């Protein structure tokens, strides 16, 4: 009988001894080797977060330089070529290297903790995905500093990006960066979906899953169906440029609009891929600081699902100016307006939650307030742009720039910064300073609106996007200068965030396991969590485990001396299997080098795809090949 088996966890070992055994089982090798071989979702997640914020800073600097250039008419700070590179780098980095990875990173770090498991599923795939992501980002930015940065905009329309109008390697680098980042994103999505569906703690039936986890699940499914589109379309572009295919060449039966269809079939869901996790963050923050469950949980879940579904039916609204059939346009106008309904339901859901609760206006909740105000404005201009006649007028003007910054910064960056203040204590064990946090918020909120609100007017007054300068006397000077002033405030607010983080890491107040008195399982383990996450697997008996019981209900019986998880059934999370987990390994890094090397070389010769398959096959085989007896013994 296992009750006497000392290698299984249980009441008969005291907690100190249990922790010591688990720590030995789950630790990484020390030093650099440990860093390269780790499969710990928290270490890799944190790495993703730091890297993504690094790219955020670079893209922010690019934006700031553009704002300086536009501060007054006929400025000569930046020339047209560099300006083209700057807005391409800014958009591409924000979308592909910051927004999607940071949202997935939040899931990588938090989802296993929130569902009460010890690891993300397929941890080797996760490790592989990080190295691929990092390689893609480095490729883009190294190229930029070598003055071969892409310059055809973040959606790289053909024919501008095609072989005829964009000679050289710039667009190839852009297109291959897409391959890296989307491969990495798909890998993370597969791991995350398997974790959420199969590794939830016993008892966490689907109707008890935290809204944040639901949001990450919906986002991950969207990644599966949206990212292949951009990979296909950028591969077609590379082939047109490198091996002489004619996908986008009208002279040989190709079609430039094929690019737009395939790109926006990805590009529109992309916006929701960024936005939906942010909704999950907002739900977590609102519930905790209103001190009550989120109002109308089933409707909130259905709204997330509906948003994820509708997002695939809107892409043509990016193409109203291309002369498509009228009937089609009407359909996409209707779809674009319909999608505001589930979002509206959620916003009313949060307002109801705050109304019925006893809200504490801490920094995270302030950011949620900022999100609601800014995002609703962006949503309203979205409904305006969904109507074709208006869109035709405003297409390619600063009105559109204003709209999508209200949607993306309002919809994603405000909730994300709220989430930084909210979960920072869990990641580091220390609280961020509240006073600095509030100044941080107000600087950003004011700076953001000063920068982007006037753009609505400038767009209406005819200022086009993507011009490196403009003539004096068009009436655009004053507002552009004001916007640049707003950008200074945004930069200051980001500096303040950095200062707050550094100060807290040095001398912040200790957070303890659950500083906010929150309800979900990530707060049931120490801050920062130990490598094994939970000493005992939680047993979930309600939707708010930490609010419903003074005691933490747990199950015993997983091994202490081997890495082991429990798999549960998809709907009701009934315990089903014990799943052994692989120990740390270097093969994902080597496989990433092989795959990344092949991608890089294929920019220069198509033979790289054939020759490069050999090291890829070798590393993947070594990755897959069973090591020793660990797995077999886990069966017993």
């Amino acid at each position, binding site marked *: 009988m296992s009750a006497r088996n000392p290698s299984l966890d249980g009441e008969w070992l005291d907690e100190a001894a249990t922790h010591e055994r688990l720590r030995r089982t789950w630790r990484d090798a020390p030093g650099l080797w440990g860093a390269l071989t780790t499969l710990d979702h928290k270490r890799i997640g944190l790495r993703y977060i730091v890297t993504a914020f690094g790219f955020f800073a670079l893209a922010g600097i690019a934006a700031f330089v553009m704002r300086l250039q536009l501060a007054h008419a006929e400025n000569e700070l930046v020339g047209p070529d560099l300006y083209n590179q700057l807005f391409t780098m800014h958009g591409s980095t924000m979308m592909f290297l910051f927004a999607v990875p940071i949202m997935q990173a939040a899931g990588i770090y938090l989802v296993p903790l929130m569902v009460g498991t010890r690891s993300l599923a397929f941890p080797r795939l996760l490790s592989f995905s990080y190295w691929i992501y990092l390689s893609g980002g480095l490729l883009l930015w190294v190229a930029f500093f070598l003055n071969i940065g892409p310059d055809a905009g973040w959606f790289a329309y053909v024919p501008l990006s095609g072989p005829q109008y964009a000679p050289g390697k710039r667009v190839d680098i852009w297109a291959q960066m897409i391959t890296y980042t989307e491969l990495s994103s798909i890998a993370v999505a597969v791991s995350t979906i398997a974790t959420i569906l199969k590794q939830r703690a016993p008892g966490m039936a689907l109707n008890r899953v935290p809204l944040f986890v639901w949001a990450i699940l919906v986002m991950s499914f969207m990644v599966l169906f949206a990212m292949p589109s951009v990979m296909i379309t950028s591969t077609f572009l590379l082939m047109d440029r490198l091996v002489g295919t004619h996908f986008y060449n009208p002279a040989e*039966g190709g*079609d430039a609009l094929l690019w737009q269809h395939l790109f926006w079939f990805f590009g529109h869901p992309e916006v929701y891929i960024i936005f939906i996790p942010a909704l999950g963050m907002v739900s977590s923050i609102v519930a905790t600081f209103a001190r009550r469950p989120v109002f109308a949980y089933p409707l909130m879940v259905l709204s997330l699902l509906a948003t994820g579904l509708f997002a695939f039916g809107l892409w043509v609204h990016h193409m109203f100016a291309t002369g498509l059939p009228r009937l089609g346009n009407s359909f996409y106008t209707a779809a674009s307006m319909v999608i505001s309904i589930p979002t509206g339901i959620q916003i009313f859901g949060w307002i109801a939650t705050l109304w019925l609760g006893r809200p504490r206006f801490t920094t995270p909740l302030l950011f949620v307030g900022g999100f609601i105000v800014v995002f609703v404005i962006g949503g309203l201009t979205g409904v305006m742009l969904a109507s074709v006649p208006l869109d035709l007028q405003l297409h390619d003007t600063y009105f559109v720039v204003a709209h999508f910054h209200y949607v993306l910064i309002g919809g994603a960056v405000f909730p994300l910064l709220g989430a930084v203040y909210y979960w920072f204590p869990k990641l580091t064990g220390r609280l961020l300073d509240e006073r600095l946090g509030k100044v941080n918020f107000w600087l950003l909120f004011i700076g953001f609106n000063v920068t982007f609100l006037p753009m609505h007017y400038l767009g209406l007054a005819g200022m086009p996007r993507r011009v490196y300068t403009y003539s004096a006397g068009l009436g655009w000077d004053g507002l552009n200068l004001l916007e640049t002033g707003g950008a200074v405030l945004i930069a200051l607010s980001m500096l303040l965030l950095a200062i707050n983080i550094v100060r807290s890491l040095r001398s912040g107040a200790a957070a303890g*396991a659950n500083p906010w008195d929150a309800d979900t399982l990530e707060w049931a383990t120490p801050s920062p969590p130990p490598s094994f996450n939970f000493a005992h697997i939680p047993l979930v008996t309600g939707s708010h485990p930490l609010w419903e019981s003074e005691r933490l209900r747990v199950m015993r019986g997983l091994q202490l001396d081997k890495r082991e998880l429990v798999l549960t059934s998809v709907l009701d999370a009934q315990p089903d299997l014990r799943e052994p987990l692989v120990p740390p390994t270097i093969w994902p890094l080597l496989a990433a080098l092989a795959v990344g090397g092949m991608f890089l070389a294929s920019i220069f010769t198509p033979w790289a795809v054939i020759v490069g398959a050999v090291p890829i096959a070798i590393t993947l085989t070594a990755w897959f090949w069973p090591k020793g007896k660990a797995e077999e013994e886990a069966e017993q």
Partner: protein
Amino acid sequence: MSARDLDDRPLQFMGDLSQLPGHGHSHRSLTWWGMMGLICVEGTALALAAAAYLYLSSHERQWPPAQLLPSAGWGTAFTVIVLLSFVPNMVLNKRAEQEKLGPVRLWMVIMTLIGVVLVAIRYFEFRSMHVAWSDSAYGSIAITLLGLHTVHLVTDLYDSVVLTVLMFTRHGDTGRRYVDVAENAIYWNFVIYVWLPVYVLLYLAPRWL
């Protein structure tokens, strides 16, 4: 460290997981879910390439534009064999779920050989398309569609070779290996299913459109 340091919450032990089995087949296993994710991604990519094929064909008065029709012989042979391979593949899948080492080894070898034959046929199929990807947009999308399916075909063949070798080593006779074999067979079914629309587009559509 004591339990109280965790969250100031006393623990309450509610049950024991130690008697759960160490592996399970089909949707009970993580491998199955990983495989389904892969199938979603690759299926989407193929569906979008098929959409691009139809989109480009809708712009032409004649399809294929001013070129020879592809010869359907090799493609039809491929279709017949790949459809028939469903039977041994499902036998392999069942034997793997029953965890019978001898039959699993036998059927893995058979499936691997079928894969080799199909890859060989595929080589002649490329030649029977009578078009290069640089000839026209038709050539680009037709060769790419065939190429995409070939990537799946070759990947699965390589997986099968590695797994077959593995089943003859000391690592073979374990529950988790049988899960791998069963899931690899599921992926082969995907390779079969997605071939049918590709066949219709490449060989029948040019005759109908």
